[in-house]
Every structure is written in C-alpha cells, then in structure tokens.
C-alpha cells in the first residue's frame, strides 16, 4: 500500500525533503512505521517528534490505511 509522508520544521531539514511517497506492507501500525522511518533516517533517532495520521495525533498502536497522510511533527512553537 501507498502512504504519503510529510516532514515539518527541523524534520524536513533532517531528512532533506518536506514529503515523500512511502510504499509499505499492509497491515502497518504507527509504531511500525516509526521504526521503518528511523531505519531509513538514523538522524531522526535523537529528534523528538509526534506522528499525526490524517491530521490527528496518533499513538503507536493505531493502524495506518492505504492513502493515509502521515505527518512527522517536531515540538510545537506557536504563540
């Protein structure tokens, strides 16, 4: 299945791009995707980030469906 990944702020900087298309095996949980991302981008290991799936903050157990939009969000700085 195909999902779309978005990187924001310092994470776009760390990975070198703001988004990419990700080919993954189905089923896939948020926790499993996080592991795969850390494998591809070891630089993310020492960064704090949360994952949002379809614009909702997601915990590790949440399943990711095909065509999902997954965003990697560094610490918030609004205000």
């Amino acid at each position, binding site marked *: 299945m195909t999902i779309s990944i978005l990187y924001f702020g*310092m994470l776009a900087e760390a990975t070198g791009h703001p988004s990419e298309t990700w080919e993954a095996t189905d089923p896939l949980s948020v926790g499993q995707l996080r592991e795969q991302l850390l494998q591809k981008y070891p630089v993310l290991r020492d960064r704090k980030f949360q994952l949002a799936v379809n614009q909702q903050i997601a915990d590790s157990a949440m399943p990711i469906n095909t065509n999902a939009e997954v965003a990697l969000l560094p610490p*918030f700085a*609004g*205000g």
Partner: protein
Amino acid sequence: MEKTHTPKKVFVDGPISPQFISDSIAKHQSKTNIGAHSLFLGQIRADQKDGGVVTGIEYTAYTEMAEKVFHDIREAAFAKFDLVCMHIYHSLGLVPTGEVSLFVFVSSAHRRASFEALEYVVEEIKAKVPIFGKELIGETGEYTWKENK
C-alpha cells in the same frame, strides 16, 4: 451568542499589527451584550542565544491540521465558558523581534469567563497546534528551532 462557529481564518502573513488589533476591538462596540474583553498578544523577544540575539521567528505550520485544531479549541472554549465571541490570529512567515505573532481575543458578558477562556485558549494553542518556529539569531544566518514549554 454565536450559535454556529464556522471555521475562521486564523493564519495571517507576517506580523499582526496594532492597527489590526484596534480594528478588531472597534468591531465589537456594536455587540452591547459584551461587558469584558480579554486579549493576549504574543510578542517576539530578543532573547540572547549562543551566537547572538534573536532577530525574529520564521513560522511554518501543518496548516490543514492546525486549522482543525484551532477550530476544536474554539468549540471547546465555547462549551466550557460563557462567551459572546472569540477570535484567534497567528502569524506565518517572518515576524521580527518586537512584533506580535499571536492574538487571542475573547469577549463575555462578565469578566470571569473572559479571564478563564483567555488562559485556556492560549495554553491549548501552545500545546496542541502544529506550528513550528525557527528563531533567527544575529546577522549571520544562524538559527535554532523554538520549542514551547
């Protein structure tokens, strides 16, 4: 009382000007059930960092999600507090030191609701809205990423 709270435009390009704030205030003078307005303005500080002084913050956001979260915060505040109206504005792009990047404006018949809602809304924004800030330092192109506490 506003009964339907349609999503409102929150993001503005660059700093929020004092004139924009006074225009917002002036618009509320016809709402004569309002007795209390509480306003919060977040202003960019010239903090001292390794490498120099902060000269501004460059804001970016996951805008689609941010707009949803702003809407949820707005709905929750109307449910919790007895408000007449509420407005939230946040900058995107560069906001130089000394200028305003966040403007929260809550209005109610009596003062307590406006105090409580103001704090609630500002804290929720800081904690939950996916906005990112690059603090620009000195004159040499250095920066650090801001993180809310």
